[in-house]
């Protein structure tokens, strides 16, 4: 079975387009074909009242000369349009390197997210029943629930990366995400919160256990806010709960280890490979291979296999996340981290699933060790400045820790720190690594890609907490 037909093209046409891309003597080139689609149904005001579908089809042509990139794309997959795009992309090159055409052979690199029940086989009526069921569960979970909105989205991407060395790497990338948004009322107070779950999977993802967890979490997180008050202000000890607090790794170190920033010398980690950047026992991994995870890929968007990349091993910085351009610059193999939002975007080194390996401590032991600090349970978003190393993440919900115990709930507080300082001040790592199943999306240079993150319970001796002075 050939996958060229998925895009209405054939191997001979790809050869011609690649030849046009390489016609000005470039070092390398690739064609990135993408055919994607999505469907979502949504419920609000007790009605399943909104549906949407989206279809996208096109090709991106990249021409590479050293670390220079010429890029063009088109949604029109005819000979004329694609060759024109290839010639435009080729304008960056002016050399005489020759590439002999080689025969193109199709490959699939791995099979990490095969859907048992693909969304193509799921009726819209089934989707409608699901979002209604989630709504009913949310209303049933607590009498204070006032409004519920639910939605179910699923999408697919067929991608085909064609290279001058004859590789044509195909992948089918499914994704689904379920959302539940709850508004609750207690006396005169109202609070709202949302929960979502996402994976590269089909209908089988929504097991009874997961659906119950999704609806329960949306309601529990909302009503917990009634008890919560503002956080204190200033520097203090912070305990990060297992799971979504992987956002700390994503911001504090992950972006800073994307090799493009280091190739340009603009990351605070640029000169630190082989040196200690965290205490013994801290191992940080970016992994493209976790079965079904939102951040997992069978192939990256340059046609290279995704791998498990150890970034920090027992506190020592081991290396960066590479696409082909940065890998060539550093004389290392690419790590399968070259990703792009769509055929309209150039490849960049990006994270996949970022997490910290577990350590020796029980979570209760970590909390008990803190006399005064805060515990972070639920997160919204984060950001980093690559060069200065300053990063921030927003805690939607947490607790004060007083005398080794979780006491007053807190909410809506931004935490800020400096990446290297915070890594150096990790004091305890828990034994409870959990990869969060939330629908995390990472933004860089205007491109969004799906990622996962995970963390065991971790204690950081000092972070700046953006609350109010007591």
């Amino acid at each position, binding site marked *: 079975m050939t996958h060229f037909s998925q895009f209405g093209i054939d191997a001979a046409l790809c050869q011609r387009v690649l030849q046009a891309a390489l016609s000005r003597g470039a070092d390398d080139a690739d064609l990135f074909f993408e055919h994607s689609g999505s469907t979502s149904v949504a419920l609000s005001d007790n009605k399943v009242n909104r*549906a949407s579908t989206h279809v996208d089809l096109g090709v991106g042509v990249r021409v590479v000369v050293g670390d220079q990139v010429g890029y063009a794309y088109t949604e029109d997959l005819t000979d004329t349009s694609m060759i024109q795009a290839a010639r435009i992309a080729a304008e960056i090159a002016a050399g005489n390197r020759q590439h002999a055409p080689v025969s193109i052979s199709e490959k699939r690199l791995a099979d990490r997210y095969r859907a048992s029940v693909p969304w193509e086989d799921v009726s819209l009526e089934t989707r409608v029943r699901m979002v209604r069921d989630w709504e009913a569960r949310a209303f049933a979970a607590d009498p204070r629930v006032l409004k519920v909105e639910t939605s179910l989205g699923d999408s697919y991407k067929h991608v085909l990366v064609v290279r001058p060395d004859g590789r044509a790497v195909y992948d089918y990338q499914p994704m689904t995400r379920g959302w539940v948004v709850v508004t609750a009322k207690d006396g005169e107070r109202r609070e709202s919160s949302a929960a979502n779950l996402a994976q590269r999977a089909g209908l089988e993802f929504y097991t009874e256990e997961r659906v119950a967890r999704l609806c329960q979490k949306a309601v529990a997180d909302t009503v917990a806010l009634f008890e919560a008050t503002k956080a204190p202000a200033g520097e203090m000890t912070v305990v990060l709960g297992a799971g979504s607090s992987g956002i700390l790794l994503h911001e504090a170190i992950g972006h800073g280890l994307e090799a493009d920033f280091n190739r340009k010398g603009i990351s605070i980690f640029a000169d630190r490979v082989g040196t200690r950047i965290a205490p013994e026992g801290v191992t940080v991994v970016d992994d493209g291979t976790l079965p079904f995870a939102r951040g997992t890929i069978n192939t990256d968007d340059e046609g290279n296999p995704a791998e498990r990349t150890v970034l920090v091993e027992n506190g020592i910085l081991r290396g960066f996340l590479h696409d082909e351009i940065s890998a060539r610059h550093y004389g290392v193999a690419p790590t399968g981290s070259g990703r792009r939002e769509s055929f309209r975007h150039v490849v960049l080194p990006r994270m996949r699933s970022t997490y910290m390996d577990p350590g020796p401590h029980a979570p209760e032991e970590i909390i008990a060790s803190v006399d005064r600090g805060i515990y972070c349970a639920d997160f919204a978003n984060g950001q980093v400045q690559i060069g200065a190393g300053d990063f921030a993440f927003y805690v939607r919900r947490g607790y004060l820790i007083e005398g080794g115990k979780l006491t007053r709930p807190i909410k809506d507080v931004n935490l800020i720190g400096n990446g290297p300082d915070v890594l150096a001040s990790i004091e305890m790592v828990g034994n409870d690594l959990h990869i969060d199943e939330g629908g995390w999306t990472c933004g860089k240079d205007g491109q969004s890609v799906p990622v996962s993150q995970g963390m065991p319970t971790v204690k950081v001796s000092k972070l700046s907490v953006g609350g109010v002075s007591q």
Partner: protein
Amino acid sequence: MSQLFELARSTVARAQALGAHEVSVSVSRSTEISMMRRAGKLEQATQATSLGLSLSLLVDDRYSGHATSDLRPEALEAFLRRAIDATRVLEPEPERRQPDVADCGRGASEELLDSFDASRGALPVETRREAAERLEAAVDALPHREQVLSATIYAGDSEEESVRVMSNGFEGARRGTGFGAGVEMTLEEPGGRRPEAMAWYGANHRGDLPGAEAIAAEAWKRAAERLGAKPIASGRYPMLLQNHAAGRILGVIGGPLSGSELHQQRSFLSGRKDTPIASDRLTLTDVPDIPRAPGSRPWDGDGLVARRMPLIESGILRNYYINTYYGRKLGTPPTTGGRSNWVVSPGSRSPAEILRDVSRCIVVTGFLGGNSNGLTGDFSFGVQGLLVERGEVVGHIGEMNVSGNIEEVLKALVEPSTDVWTWSSLRAPSLFFDGIQFSGT
């Protein structure tokens, strides 16, 4: 444009033939060219033309929205059939019906909005390469060039034309051009920190962009203001919020002003119309008809005629963003569904005049992360800035947060300054507040 209209009209007609009762179709075509330079050479050049179609449907009062870039006739036909089938399984909501065509149409004329630079079409690709080279040369000519570790130069432009055809009879076309230029600069300081900053400018007309020297100088200034940044003691301080950064704080009220959040009972501004929510020094207006401004538009998302709308007048909340659908749900006339340009009325003193009279003040120059809660108005953002005493910069601030309740903060506005920022859809001067909560050490 006629090709786009043809595709939009035929899609409306085909969707109706397949069973849709109301249809709205937008078709847009865009081209973009961008150049990125670094370390003396062109690092990236992108060029593309793009065509896409989006539509919303009402089938027996059931509503759905769709988009596609696969415009091959057989693919479009299959797409429409699937879209209509998907709509039939939903529950009806007559509130989704299109507005009366009498309320739809153009506000400001194309001539007044002046968002299209006709010279773009004739520009050779080389003009963009040269613009990037000039900008890089301006960075290289900076007096402290040796402290610049890396400077990435961006230059590019785009053009978009789009048409809208609705089954209620409304048809409209608009076009615009955009030119952008920017520098992202990283400096080096002892200890390994590499503070960075970006200066970026966009304009509808090529001739409106600042000169290369001014852009390079602004990038340097912003990056240099981050050298040696560190937190200071937590506490309440006067705050001068710089004009270009004001959107982060004022934007906290954006969600709570929207019809969807009011209807879902998720807005702290619910029921607050015609009551004070800010200091009487704050006047904020939605202005869709500013010539050459990025947020200007002839009509809104529903096709309704775009009109000026007061949001806050001398501290009093005057209007919400309510589209046709939420207007019917909330039982109130629609205003408009979303913001165009936000204009904050200026005061009478420059930032320097204001700062001269303050013994100790944090000037916020930028934000890092953070978020807000639309039900309470509470927010917490990371900040960078300057510590200023009687007009003199005495330190650079980083790794700090600013927190509070947006209503309390807007009520703490002492005065807006005179220096209105004109490079974004938020046209605000620097804003001076008293007693704002910062947390640091």
